[in-house]
């Protein structure tokens, strides 16, 4: 899978699947936004966004908006951001994945590393788009 070009895409965007991922009172992004789900090998992200209340580019049934992450800072954590393989059956041109987060969450060492990544990704994230204006104070 090809690596993303950080100059071409200075930011990547994570669709907000849960309202709990952002607290408008503290303007704090939750680390929960960066936890792998069962069966996932990477965190889904978008290279560009132009969503509206009617349209969700991430294709989620429930989406509250997007978080923005600076591409270079994500890479500086030691993580990889890869684009979809053009020949893959599920290829989406606007889709990327953050790779390198431990999938196995059964040992303290893996949990520590995964939570360190989740914490750092949350700290560098910011609210980019409030799709349904649910995050107003």
């Amino acid at each position, binding site marked *: 899978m090809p690596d993303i070009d950080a100059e071409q895409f200075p930011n990547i965007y994570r669709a907000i699947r849960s309202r709990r991922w952002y607290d408008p009172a503290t303007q704090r992004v939750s*680390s929960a936004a960066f*936890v792998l789900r069962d069966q996932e090998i990477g965190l889904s992200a978008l290279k560009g966004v132009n969503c509206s209340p009617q349209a969700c580019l991430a294709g989620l049934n429930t989406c509250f908006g997007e978080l923005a992450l600076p591409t270079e800072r994500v890479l500086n954590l030691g993580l990889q951001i890869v684009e979809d393989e053009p020949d893959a059956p599920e290829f989406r041109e606007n889709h990327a994945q953050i790779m390198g987060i431990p999938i196995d969450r059964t040992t*303290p060492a893996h949990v520590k590393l995964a939570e360190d990544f989740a914490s750092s990704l949350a700290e560098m994230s910011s609210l980019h788009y409030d799709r349904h204006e649910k995050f107003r104070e």
Partner: protein
Amino acid sequence: MPVALQDLSLGNNFPGLQPESVIRRLASESSLDWRMTCVPRNYPNAPIEVHTISDLQNDAIPYIKSRLIRQSPVLSDLELLVQEERETDAPITPHANQQAAEMLLYVNAILGNAVPELSIAPDGNGGLRIEWFRDNRTLRVLIPSRAEQVPFIYQRINRDSAVHNFSLATVVQALRAVFDNPHNARY
């Protein structure tokens, strides 16, 4: 703490049960601080709710769940989250909900308001992530969706972090270490 019969939700479910005896037991407990009266005598081994007659006969004083939810903002938020996630493809499991409620009640009973702000979020797999935070200090409890999965405690101060095996006592100790005196937190 006044106890209303309707809060027990037992009357029609268990023919032959004498509700008055349950009320007497609860009333005797209610002379203590209200938080403690809500915890079964053999907590945390007691069932969180009474399902059978034997639960009562086994000396388990029942939770008054509806009253607790109304009285405790922390449990209200947990209940709200469970409702929010109900229609998603990974609703919060009863196991995660119960373990989180037990932990929050335990922490509240021991530390009361001496803990910082709390955030509860779904983990996307049916489990819960419960996090206390202040400035650059975080304590996070990772509660998985299923009983056979292992819960963990994660603490972080600035860039230094550590993971502990989960127990109710360890959560309280870690909260004290991270937020009362962060210099004592072990890594």
